[in-house]
């Protein structure tokens, strides 16, 4: 068992509040990703869990034990750094065995553990090399190997893939996901890349300016963003936002006006919004379509052909620019007049404070755990 719990964790540097009260529970064997724009405090939060930064107030519980003042090495965590932070004067094997050497483990046992970690990461032929003789991807693997050797309760990753090139990043992403399954370990992962977050996480924690904006599974965040920030941050290309007004509220939801005079009834919980209120309508580019039956009309201003898809930037009559992700074979050019179709079920409404207005339906994948369709029953911890 390895759980991590944060209770009203705060961090202040001088007079600046960096982390402003974070409550979070990381379950055993969960892959949790902290994501957010740079400066949101995600790395600081991770470093506080690691013990590399002090905790100004609040409680950090590792396996239920308060660990605020426990030294980093005694917390039973291992961290993989963005720069890999290998010891340049030691061989790969010595790098991986360093913690064991400090702990007084015999050389035999050290080598055995190093070899078994090296086998998992295909590092065996490199054990006698120095870090400078390795490629970026290999160094990254050594850094992960150094973490594995310690058999930590929780793995911490601080933007581990951001120094790798795009192709290697995709490969390492897969490897990390595989490693998570293989080691069956609790992992906390920090990134600014929402694709990494979406692809690897069991649970994503979206942070902004030292505050958690939303916690949920990748698809929950995608289909049910709690506010404008999360809606805009998760998903690529970014969600379209249109300022509009509620015309009518009925049992189907709230009808809002569209640029050019149309209306659209978004399925929100009746009573959660009043007619006449100003709201923001959010809809993702991939949920829009081009066709004669469209409800919004406009003119194409930019076309981006990506091969598999086409991004069409449409200037509406209301002078908003909305992005439509159309088929890759779409034959369209700038200045064409187009109609944009919207499915009401894919739309989101946000109130004036940016908070999402509760939807009356829930996406069928939003609450499913990533991976296996039905989680296999696990033996409850304890001795028999």
């Amino acid at each position, binding site marked *: 068992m390895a759980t991590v719990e944060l209770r009203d964790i705060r961090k202040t540097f001088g007079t600046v509040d960096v982390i402003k009260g974070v409550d979070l529970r990381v379950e055993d064997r969960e892959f949790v990703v902290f994501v957010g724009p740079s400066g949101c405090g995600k790395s600081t939060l991770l470093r506080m869990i690691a013990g590399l930064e002090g905790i100004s107030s609040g409680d950090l519980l590792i396996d239920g034990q308060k660990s605020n003042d426990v030294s980093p*090495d005694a917390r039973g965590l291992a961290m993989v*750094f963005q720069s890999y*932070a290998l*010891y*340049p004067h030691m061989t790969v094997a010595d790098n991986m065995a360093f913690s064991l050497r*400090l*702990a007084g483990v015999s050389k035999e046992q050290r080598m055995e553990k190093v070899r078994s970690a090296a086998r998992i990461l295909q590092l065996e032929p490199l054990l006698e090399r*120095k870090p400078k*003789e390795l490629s970026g991807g290999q160094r990254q693997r050594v850094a992960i190997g150094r973490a594995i050797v*310690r058999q930590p309760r929780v793995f911490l990753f601080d933007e581990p893939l951001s120094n790798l090139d795009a192709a290697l990043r995709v490969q390492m992403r897969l490897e990390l996901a595989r490693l998570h399954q293989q080691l069956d370990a609790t992992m906390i992962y920090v990134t600014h890349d929402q694709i990494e977050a979406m692809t690897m996480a069991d649970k994503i924690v979206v942070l902004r300016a030292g505050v958690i904006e939303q916690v949920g599974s990748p698809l929950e965040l995608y289909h049910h963003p709690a506010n404008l920030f999360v809606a805009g941050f998760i998903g690529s290309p970014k969600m379209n936002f249109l300022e509009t007004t509620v015309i009518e509220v009925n049992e189907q939801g709230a009808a809002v006006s569209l640029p050019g005079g149309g209306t659209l009834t978004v399925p929100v919980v009746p009573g959660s919004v009043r007619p006449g209120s100003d709201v923001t309508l959010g809809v993702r580019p991939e949920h829009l379509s081009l066709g004669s039956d469209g409800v919004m009309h406009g003119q194409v201003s930019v076309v981006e052909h990506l091969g598999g898809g086409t991004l069409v930037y449409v200037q509406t009559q209301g002078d908003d620019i909305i992005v439509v992700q159309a088929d890759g074979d779409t034959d369209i050019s700038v200045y064409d007049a187009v109609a944009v179709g919207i499915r009401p079920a894919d739309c989101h409404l946000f109130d004036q404070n940016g908070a999402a207005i509760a939807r009356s339906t829930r996406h069928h994948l939003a609450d499913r755990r990533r991976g296996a369709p039905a989680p296999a029953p696990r033996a409850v911890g304890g001795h028999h």
Partner: protein
Amino acid sequence: METTLRAKLLMTVFAWTVTLLIFFPIFWMLVTSFKTEVEAVATPPSLFFEPTLENYDAVQERANYIRFALNSIGISIGSTLAALAFGIPAAYAMAFFPTKRTKSTLLWMLSTKMLPPVGVLVPIYLLFRDTGLLDTQIGLVIIYTLINLPIVVWMLYSFFKEVPGEILEAGRMDGPKPRQELWMLLMPLALPGIASTGLLSVILCWNEAFWSLNLTASQAAPLTAFIASFSSPEGLFWAKLSAASTMAIAPILIIGWLSQRQLVRGLTFGAVK
């Protein structure tokens, strides 16, 4: 194209001029050491002459070079080791556990170098006389250590500061005690810096003349005193003085020349990224 070429040419000429200007006195000293006393003072100076080793013979006859040299080596290395032994822990503490006053402490340490040594000559001399340190190697080791510590600490501090923080943080996750962190991580990582600090300290000790001339007589006198003994009241013997000086600076010049490459190579590391 042409302007960059001209600029390159100008820079080259400039660099060579400066280099030659700096090197010329050493070159001239070397040349003079192979002249006779008469040729050495001739005006205009003679560039073409029959080289002779008679000055080196004369110097050897008059003074025991080896004894002076051994003193120089012993004092330089001794005080460098002592300065590093005190300086490394001090710089470690200042670089990684700084307080509000660390910066001012460093500046204050450096400011002690601004004091003219002659200002403390009398008290130091009296102290040395009363403690029996006059004309002893240990006496000079103590004074040189004290003189060089500010620079040693300052240099080590900047080298330690350059060690990538994430490597030390990775270390802290692995759990070394401070002593282990210093020995197993920081010192190997900062080794090129420690080596160049040590080298500088050796050079400074080797060249120091004020205290060595004032605090030693014969037993502990290093090579600076050896040179000085050739500018005696009987008159200046330029050729012999040059020969003595050449012999005095030769070891340190060779050490500097050899270690230079090693130091530069050591500074390129493959640690981060």
